[in-house]
């Protein structure tokens, strides 16, 4: 496994929300998905995942309900709320701007 990279709280929130824009998902599924879309860079453990989910749920950006999973296990599924959806777009735009700026900063030779 590639070396673990420190994941900032806000970044994790963004990744979770991004994952959920596709479809509602349960905790393990989100973790697996993040691992996939970051090409293995981030392997989010429950110790980080569930507190983040709790925070997002309390902020009202995601909502949860229990239901059967794809292989019949009873799981708690999270999905984006309207507020959350709006927030994701805004966060993504901000992140893109920041990432670009940092990219330029690192490229600059003078």
């Amino acid at each position, binding site marked *: 496994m590639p070396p673990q990279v420190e994941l900032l709280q806000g970044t994790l929130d963004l990744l979770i929300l991004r994952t959920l824009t596709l479809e509602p998902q*349960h*905790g*393990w*599924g989100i*973790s*697996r998905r993040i691992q996939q879309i970051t090409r293995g860079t981030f392997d989010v*453990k*429950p*110790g980080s995942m*569930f*507190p*983040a989910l*709790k*925070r997002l749920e*309390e*902020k*009202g950006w995601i909502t949860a309900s229990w239901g059967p*999973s794809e*292989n019949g*296990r*009873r*799981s*708690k599924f999270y999905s984006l709320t309207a507020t959350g959806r709006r927030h994701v777009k805004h966060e993504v735009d901000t992140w893109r701007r920041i990432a670009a700026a940092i990219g330029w900063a690192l490229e600059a030779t003078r």
Partner: protein
Amino acid sequence: MNRLIAAVRNLFGGRRSDRETEAELESYAEHAADAYESRGLSRADAERAARLDVGGIAQVSEQVRDASAGRALESLRRDLAYGIRGLRRSPGFTLAVAGVLALGIGATTAIFSIVSGVLLRPLPVPHGDQLVRVFHTPPPDSFPGITRFSVSPANFLDWKARSHSFDDLAIYGFGGRTLTGGPRAESITIAHVSPNLFAMIDAVPAMGRLLNADDDRPGGGRVAMVSWSFWQSRFGGVALDGQSVILDGEPYAIVGVMPASFEWPVWSITGMPIWTPLGWTDADRAVRGNHNYNVIGRLRPGVSVAAASAELDAISADLAREHPVENTGWGANLVRLQDLIVNPVRRSLLILLGAVGFLLLIASANASNLILSRALGRQKEVAIRAALGASRARIIRQLIVETLLVAAVAGAAGLGLARLTLLAFATYLKDQLPRATDVALDGRVVGVTIGVAVVAGLLASLGPAIRASPAGVQDTLKQGLGRTDAASAGRLGRRLLVGVEVALSLALLAGAGLLARSVWSLLHVDPGFETANVLTFSVGVSQSKYPTPGSRSAYFDDGLARLRAVPGVTDAALVDTLPLGPGSMQPFTIVGRAAPVVADSLELAVRQISPGYFRAFRIPLVRGRDVDAHDANAVVISESAARTFWPGADPIGQQMQFKFTPGVTFDVVGIVRDIRLESLDSDNAMPTVYQWMRERPWSAMTFVVRTAGPPASVTPTALSAIEDLDPNQAVRDVATMTERVAATTAPRRFELDLLGTFAVLAVALAGIGLFSVLAHAVRGRSREIAVRSALGASTAEIIGLVVVEGVKPTLGGLAAGLIIAWSLGPVLKTLIFGIGTFDLATYAAGATALLVVSCVAAIVPAWRAAHLDPLKVLREE
């Protein structure tokens, strides 16, 4: 906003959230196990790998909870619940800590409520904080040491006209009158007031009307206002309907009755039974050189005392220029009425507040000791919690919350204690303090109590919190979670706490001891005259019935003769002012000597006496003789007067003249020993002269009656002898000299009572603290003691061991206590009399007392230690 709602929900749904998280983690683990299984692991291996991924369920639950909104509040709630559970499991501990803290908090509350009511609260008078008393500052050469003097009418009127600092200025005076019309004649003091006095304090009459400017006619309109209590006792509280009072034979129509609420014990003018108008004539108004009146003013809002004072200084300077004869050297000063009333007790109340602060510290240290012991006993519990992930901050916070819980209970109990104490001692306080009726558990006091409880709780948890270290977790767990040497870890802390208690107790003991010795000294100081078996009372004869000096002299001479005829009376005489009280000072000149360069610069204390005064008080005659009836005008002087004004010469045969008796020349016929003329605790003799005039102008004198035995049995006969002489002249202010002497020591005895109580409580607490430390020490070292005893140590040696253990912190505490007490020396100085602040005897006594207490505290633990069964103890390990 959503977070807020979530926070509130989290307050109550904590456990449900935990269960949900657990379920979620279970589900997660199942999914992970499925994934591993699909990659080829066996089910068992897959599940194990999944569990590893998840980590500790409890830990994750904790982290989820930490991320939840309102986490702080929720943890607080859990700490509280945990704390309450813990306290209920050990009720003995809870009661002990609460009891100790309640004692400290209760005492502090009681004293603070006194300070709050007496010193801090504004006067319960409308515009109370703006009221100021205005005095003359007399010329220092004529009146050395006196800074506040009565005011003359003309000066008052000029002040009023010329100053802008006051909303209003009013003036009043007192006078003695004989009240008749009732069953017997009464001698009362009434007040004559300027009509604006009542308006200045927004007074409203209960019946009728206030005095007004119309009543204030020259010669005095014959109208009066009376107080509620006077109205009740004299007229039975009927409606006002043209009744009148007869003062000195003249009827005064009563136009108004003041309500009962008008009488404020703090301000004498409001406690008068009768108020009449001043009734000044133009001649009265012009009087500038006689100063007999009192002035009260109301400062304009926003004007400070300093500003008004400066203005009056300027006006006084102008007046001195305009009227050089009467006003040279006469300035003005003002004092807030409130300060005037409380300043005498301000110092001692603040010192008492400091002393009770010590008591509170001792109580907190004691509580801390108990908490520390318990905390050390719970080390295994703490270790487990730390292993489960509780941070050190969390553990400390829980301890503090638990302590504050107990402190809250103690605070409530302390409030109750304080209230009971104040109620029980209400009458006692009334005798000792001005404004005692203003002492109450009001909002400010309750607020301070809460603050004190919080501070005490925090102090008490400080030591234990520092010591509660999960660093010892590993050791604790390794040592098998049994009885450990954890006791030794806390030993230093507990010894330190006990040392603090002992130190502060010594300081309190020293203070109380010094005070006790002062009171004893004061009571045993030789006043220079014999105070036992002397009855005193005053009579003021009415001017209208006894208009001439001759008639008045005849009255008093008759009185003395009758008194001397009473069985049990050995001597009777007269004096204008008794010793141990302030009296008249007059400028004088010696005939045949050049007058002093500065007029009126030679002064001494002057007392009017009758022959036999010195015999009555057993004041020794040093040279010459007493005055007698054959002398026209004679004086006897005190030794210090002789020394000061006739150094090396013989004063007997010389002649003197005095300012207040112009034209009269007195012969010096004798010299007497000095007495403590005005107070017991002044060491300097006041040069005194005792005057006798055959043509006496006196209308009020005090009888001094020496009795063979205790005066009580003779008093009724003596008083009726005087009353039979003329029932219309009232006798007042009856007291024995012993009672008067005791009254002068009353303030110090009050301080002593309180300080002594604190000291006793402090020593008791220190003793209890020591006892608990030793008991724990014995338990903690039981193995060591068992080994020693098994190896042949005698009972005495083991007892010695324990006692030494107890004496060590005591000695340390005593040393610290001496330093504290020594540094507080200047503060204590104001309280004491007759001894230096570093009185060896007192400190030695205090230290010995504490050492004895520490030995007593060691008895039970020592006995228990000596009777340990060594085999039993060693086997237990």
